[in-house]
């Protein structure tokens, strides 16, 4: 028999993993996986500011603050790329570290100046506290997952086009910028919802690992989306269960390492794209070459 608390955490973590897997597919295929990381770091000051403004810990307000500053960070990255000579990698690094620095400054200010500052527990957002999940958190995660799923299903064709051939989508007259923005908002919502449980540093892993693993198994977007969602679900479930069983281990990192295991397994054993399969193909090809099947010798 599983305890009520454990059940809540299991459901929450696996739902979070599933929606991060699905949205992460968009991020990875659009080569935006590290933007998710920057977004997570950039969310920290917004989280703290919301706390300062309200003076109390209010989950929806703080997540809204996090969403705003995260999106601002991503907008700054885009603006730096568009209007200055700063390249994308440096822009990501700058936004990530400066926003995070500002977040630390604010959170330390709160700790030192607010009477009940230590209760805010802002530090917990950095590494996350999966075990602290309560029913309302799970409702948030479930709601966000549902909305993301709906958006992905409704805009499936358009998203597919933008993911695989931006120039073609532009020529066809699709609103590429709006679709990119939609994707960014989906990523942002997923990241922000995941912050309290997985933390700033490791949420990027939840986006990247399931979809990068799914990529090894298939060449089709629909299968990849489903597979990444499933991987995310399993990773969340198994990781949480593992850390609940051995209660000494923090859940966030364990979930990530479970994802790493799935990734390594996929990389090695996936048919066709996996390392062993490609080695076998290469060996067969060499053998057929040696047997003279491709080149005629006189």
């Amino acid at each position: 028999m599983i305890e009520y608390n454990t059940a809540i955490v299991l459901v929450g973590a696996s739902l979070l993993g599933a929606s991060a897997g699905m949205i992460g597919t968009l991020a990875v295929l659009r080569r935006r996986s590290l933007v998710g990381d920057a977004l997570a770091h950039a969310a920290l000051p917004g989280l703290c500011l919301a706390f300062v403004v309200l003076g109390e810990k209010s989950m929806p307000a703080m997540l809204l603050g996090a969403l705003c500053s995260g999106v601002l960070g991503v907008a700054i990255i885009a603006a730096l790329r568009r209007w200055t000579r700063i390249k994308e990698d440096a822009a990501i690094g700058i936004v990530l570290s400066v926003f995070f620095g500002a977040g630390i400054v604010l959170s330390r200010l709160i700790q030192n100046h607010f009477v009940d500052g230590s209760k805010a527990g802002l530090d917990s957002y950095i590494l996350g506290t999966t075990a602290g999940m309560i029913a309302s958190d799970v409702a948030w995660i479930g709601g966000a997952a549902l909305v993301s799923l709906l958006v992905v299903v409704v805009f499936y064709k358009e998203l597919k086009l933008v993911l695989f051939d931006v120039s073609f989508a532009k020529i066809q007259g699709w609103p590429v910028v709006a679709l990119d923005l939609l994707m960014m908002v989906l990523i942002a919502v997923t990241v922000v919802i995941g912050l309290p449980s997985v933390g700033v540093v490791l949420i990027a892993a939840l986006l990247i690992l399931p979809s990068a693993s799914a990529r090894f198994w298939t060449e089709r977007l629909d299968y990849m989306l489903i597979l990444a969602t499933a991987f995310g679900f399993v990773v969340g479930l198994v990781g949480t269960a593992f850390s609940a069983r051995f209660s000494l281990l923090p859940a966030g990192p364990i979930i990530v390492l479970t994802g790493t295991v799935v990734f390594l397994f996929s990389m090695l054993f996936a048919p066709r794209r996996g390392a062993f399969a490609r080695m076998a193909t290469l060996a067969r090809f060499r053998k057929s070459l040696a047997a003279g099947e491709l080149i005629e010798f006189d």
Partner: protein
Amino acid sequence: MHGESIALVLANWRMPIWTIVVGVVCAIPCAVLGCFLVLRRMSLLGDAISHAVLPGIVLAFLFSGQLSGIPVIVGAMALGVLTSMLTEALHHHGKVAEDASMGVVFTSLFAAGVILLNQVGRRAHLDADCVLYGLIEFVSEDTVDMLGMAIPRVLVSLAFTFAATVVFTVALWKELKIASFDPTHSTSMGINAGLMHYLLMAMVAGVTVASFEAVGSILVIAMLIVPAATAHLLTDRLFAMVLYAAAVAVISAVTGYLLADALNTSVAGMMAVTAGAQFGAAVFLAPRHGVAAKLRHNLLLALRVRSEDVLALLFRAEESQGNGGTSMGLPRPLCIKAAGEGLLAAAALRRLKRKREAESSPDGRFRLTESGRERARSLVRAHRLWEAYLSEHSVLPIDHLHEPASRIEHFLGPDLQREIANSLTQTDQDPHGKPIPPTALRDQNP
């Protein structure tokens, strides 16, 4: 002020000095190496390495019982090279997109580090705060005696990486420079760009780890990238860039400390914020690459093009009215239309009047002045020369010549006009049959 608090301040006066010294000694090598990361577009590898060395640090702590020290730095250098190699292996052999492979490697290693930290931290005094945010505020509480002074223990390894960075950069300056700007060329000249890459990664890892205890694992990225990117906006020369980056680093270390002290908040965080503020200022105010400079340049160019369009229109009107200097000019609305309407058009007309190239009569008509006519003639000459050139040297049909010519006429100076004229068989008439005005010089000295 009370006497006892003065005494307290006097007793503690060394503490802020040491904190600032640690900040500066930590920030300079980061900024110098960051220049090469930014130029080689590998800033995120710095980010990845600073996360990925975490398990190495915890393991080193487990064995040696301390976070800093030269063996730890050497171990971290190896891990840094490993991170870079793993990322590349995933990218090349695993067919994973480059950003995703970086994300996989560093988040996995970081997660492993957090778990190790969690396990070790239970038994030893090592908590997440120290590794994530750094403890630059408390450096002077943990000192070693050296040269008869109580020196913060972190400073020893920081000084070591500082010296190593200086030696590395000075000794391999030429190689770093060429490998940063053109890896292929450098390899073909016998300087192994791959080797330089791994050497740089090792140095970045070493410096990152040495800075860990001071500024923490995430804010060290701010020290690596932000000063270098700021310097990149300020100059086009590598040597100047390194110097500027070091200067930005020093300013952020000092003002970061002072601000954090005044507001009672995190020093490392404030250092990142002040570096970010300097970067923001550079984005807007940098002399050549700043947003303000670019806007100003574009505005001036737009004004010039628009006022030149008006000059050329007035010149053509004089031509068709056929009586040279005693032209009747054109009404203002027509000129505004030629200048593309809007606020900029009005500004362009004002500019023409101010530079005395056109004048308006009381009835609101614009006429060319003598100097305006000179410039207009050169413009129209450039326009028609280009049309003639296109018609003679390209396959464009005759009704497609006007468009490109009206764009390029603003950028053809006397030298280019002469060159174009030299390559034409007929220099007195354009393809539409209009006369190409002679050069101003010949006109002035009949």
